[in-house]
């Protein structure tokens, strides 16, 4: 087998390997087919409502592969309503928040 053919076979394995492996990793295509993007799942456990009207919403995507921990800093949190709007009547649905531990 010459070098070109050997490299060609390696390339074939890599290209088809990426296709088949990611098909299983992302969609469980060979076992229990799903589409996490089309049907996302969320866990709202930990959400709290306070007597002054404050809602502390805790949202996490289900099946996160790695827990995501926010670093200290200042962030802008935005909210979109069910019509995909992020503002109305001149009011932006956003707030600047600092991370607290």
């Amino acid at each position, binding site marked *: 087998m010459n070098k070109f053919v050997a490299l060609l076979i390696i*390339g074939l394995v890599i290209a088809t390997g990426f296709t088949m492996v*990611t098909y299983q990793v992302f*969609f469980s295509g060979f076992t229990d087919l799903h589409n996490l993007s089309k049907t996302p799942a969320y866990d709202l456990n930990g959400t709290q409502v306070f007597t002054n009207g404050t809602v502390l919403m805790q949202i996490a*995507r289900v099946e*996160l592969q*790695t827990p*995501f921990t926010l670093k200290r800093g200042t962030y802008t949190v935005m909210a979109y309503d069910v019509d995909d709007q992020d503002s109305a009547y001149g009011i932006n649905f956003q707030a600047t928040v600092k991370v607290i531990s």
Partner: protein
Amino acid sequence: MSKQGVDQAQMALPIMRITLGWLYFSAMLRRVVNVPAKMNPSSSLYVGGKLITFIPHAWLISGILEYTILHPAFLFDFLVLWTVLEGVFGLFMMLGFMSRLSGLIIALLAWGIGLGAGWIGTTCLDEWQIAAVEGAAALVFVFAGSKWLSFDQLIAKKYPRGLKIGRWYLPLW
């Protein structure tokens, strides 16, 4: 396969090569020419914001994605580099210039995006399909080169063994 068969296969490759190159070159055009706000970190259209949507189910590169999002200056530089690579090697692919090298770079770009966004696709398995077919198509050019309707065709007439570096020849075309 006969010699004639090989040549005919090469003559079919520009169909894929030009489309593949345009997919990448036009990505640069959209960000730099059509909608420059896509490269403006202060804009809501900033493409850097897309990376956070990759994180929930990204495979193997979640750590890299998190790092880029937590380091905005690095994220911007990363996006500039990515956009330049898409523009340059997308154009090279369309022109058939250094097709083997262009194929390798584009394959890595396709699979790189695939690892992050492969799970995303609200109407189908969109991003996975894009990454898989673009990566495979680009890899074809690493092995096949571009021997018809291409700059490589002209360069290869003068330098058939590739770019000479010392004793070695680097088959860039």
